[in-house]
């Protein structure tokens, strides 16, 4: 077997790095979009359904951060 060229650059490395970058970008977009929706008065159920995840998941992921940021949140059931 010929030695394998493993490099931080190149097409293979680029494609792998793209996956990580897209995950980070998706997280950043989600943080911003959820915050924007909650500031605009959306409730957890609507945000969850719009994202296609459960209410529990969206609450668990974002509530602490938004409360710390002083976003006025509607009741969780609202």
């Amino acid at each position, binding site marked *: 077997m010929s030695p394998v060229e493993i490099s931080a650059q190149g097409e293979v490395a680029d494609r792998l790095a793209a996956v990580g970058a897209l995950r*980070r970008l998706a997280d950043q977009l989600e943080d911003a979009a959820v*915050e924007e929706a909650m500031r605009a008065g959306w409730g957890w159920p609507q945000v969850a359904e719009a994202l296609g995840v459960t209410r529990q998941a969206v609450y668990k992921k974002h509530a602490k*951060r938004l409360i710390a940021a002083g976003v006025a949140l509607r009741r969780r059931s609202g």
Partner: protein
Amino acid sequence: MSEFDHYLHGVLMRAAEEARAEGSATVEAHHMLLALAAGGDPVLAAAGLDHAAVRGALDQEFAHSLAAAGVTMPSGPPRSAPAAGPPRSAPAAGTPSLGATAKAALDRAIGRAPRKKDIRPGHVLLGILLAEVGTVPRALALAGADRHALIERLP
């Protein structure tokens, strides 16, 4: 607490701030690199890698990696361009946990010290720089920094 423990604690606290500012739930190796640059690490400073330079290199790497998937961000990452593009979000609450790349860097740092009591601050940067692939070597290459030359200056 030993002098090294004190140093490492400071680096990880600053790295956690970097992670929070980026909206990351975990502290990664590139956050540790930012922390070391912000602390004026002499090896990084000698190579012109201050906090702004490392941040710029990481942003460039992010855009470059997204471009490999056909995604372009006309206004740069949301964190660095709050005025345009997607709105900036509030930083993550609480303390981010140690991510896979930070753990790998710390393992390499410990592995490079002959004995536990021989571990020095330089080993932390060494552990970060020894990553052959991933965000840190990609960012350094894009910034024109010679990773191997940096490694040679460390213990």
